């Protein structure tokens, strides 16, 4: 253990076959699988608008974005499997409610503007988090993050562009984007998780260099990036307490309603049940397909072995 922690202090990367404390392995499995589940569940609120995308270019780029998310989930599931747990078991944990996923995906996408705002806020927040994780101590996770960060920049830019076009559009479009911003701002801030003093896992994760910065630091970074972006497109953020602190060069923001966060985590968010039901259907309805492919390959290998 001392050697393990010394390695971490030297900034070394831990690889799948290296010795690691059981707790480290468990924490990583929890964190990585939660991240992967989030990518997969995250396909649903956005996928909701693919069939209704209002022009071909948006249809294509939204479909590409959601596909990327599936890919990201896949990279991280595969990274998690290096820790000695199978994909089937990971999926099972999600579908039975044992594993969590990011609270943000339990909110509904009510209008097309939600799609833009998700790209801008949710992917924006994810980038802040993932850029930090690119230096995480576990090799497969870090490498997955680097690959994902490269792809994520297009997602955020796409979302911001949608919002800026709406904000400069018809009256109905301007109202649409402001309404979406009003609904998604606070849940996006909650994505970074509770303040570290209230977060049970944070201290350990930071000691083991899995997380490199605190939730509050990341949240502040996100706010500082996003406020000027909102001003640039004439969209207001629903926080009467938002003000610039010239001394710290940071944007002070209002109190987050953590009750809402805990309710959503507990399963009482607007879409928790639907999200899981959709994933369960896909999995259950798809069982015969997975079985068929496995049977086909099995027959082929039996033939070639004969």
């Amino acid at each position, binding site marked *: 253990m001392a050697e393990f922690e010394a390695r971490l202090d030297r900034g070394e990367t831990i*690889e799948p*076959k*290296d*010795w690691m404390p059981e707790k480290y392995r468990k924490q990583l499995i929890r964190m990585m699988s939660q991240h992967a589940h989030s990518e997969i569940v995250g396909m649903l609120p956005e996928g909701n608008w693919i069939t209704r995308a209002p022009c071909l270019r948006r249809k294509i780029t939204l479909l590409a974005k959601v*596909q*990327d998310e599936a*890919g990201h989930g*896949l*990279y991280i599931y*595969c*990274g998690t*499997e290096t820790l000695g747990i*199978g*994909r*089937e078991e990971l999926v099972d944990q999600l579908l039975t409610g044992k594993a969590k996923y990011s609270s943000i995906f339990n909110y509904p996408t009510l209008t097309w503007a939600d799609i833009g705002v998700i790209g801008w806020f949710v992917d924006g927040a994810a980038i802040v988090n993932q850029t930090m994780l690119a230096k995480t101590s576990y090799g497969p996770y870090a490498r*997955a993050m680097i*690959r994902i960060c490269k*792809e994520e920049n297009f997602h955020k830019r796409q979302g911001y562009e949608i919002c800026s076009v709406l904000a400069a559009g018809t009256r109905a479009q301007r109202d649409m984007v402001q309404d979406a911003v009003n609904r998604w701002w606070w849940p996006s801030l909650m994505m970074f998780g509770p303040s570290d003093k209230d977060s049970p896992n944070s201290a350990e994760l930071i000691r083991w260099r899995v997380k490199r910065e605190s939730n509050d630091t990341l949240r502040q970074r996100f706010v500082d990036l996003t406020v000027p972006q909102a001003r640039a497109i004439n969209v207001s953020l629903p926080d009467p307490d938002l003000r610039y602190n010239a001394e710290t060069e940071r944007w002070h923001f209002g109190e987050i309603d953590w009750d809402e966060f805990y309710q959503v985590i507990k399963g009482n968010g607007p879409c928790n049940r639907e999200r899981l039901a959709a994933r369960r259907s896909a999995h259950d309805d798809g069982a015969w397909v*997975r*079985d*068929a*492919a*496995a*049977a*086909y*390959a*099995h*027959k*082929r*290998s*039996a033939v070639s072995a004969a």
Partner: protein
Amino acid sequence: MTPDDGQVPGNDTQWPLWEVFTQEGEGAPHEHAGSVHAVDAEHALQNARDVYARRGKVVSIWVVPSEQIIASAPGDAGPLFDPGNDKPYRHPQFYKVPRGVRVE
């Protein structure tokens, strides 16, 4: 022997794991990109292409069943790799070349 309904015996219908290596551009080495689940080699190649070669820079893909990969154990690092570290003549910087002479 498979049962009549074609089902694979036992509960193992999980698709095996394959490691994916991609080559980005002519002459570049194949690098590990990640993994995919698939039932056989053809299926693995297709899945690898869909997951890791979407952005079109990849010119070649290798897939290998994960269990076929034999890796050095971390404990071997010393004996296997250290001897190379103290042989400076394997590194280009060791050789002084007169200025103005092109070596490559």
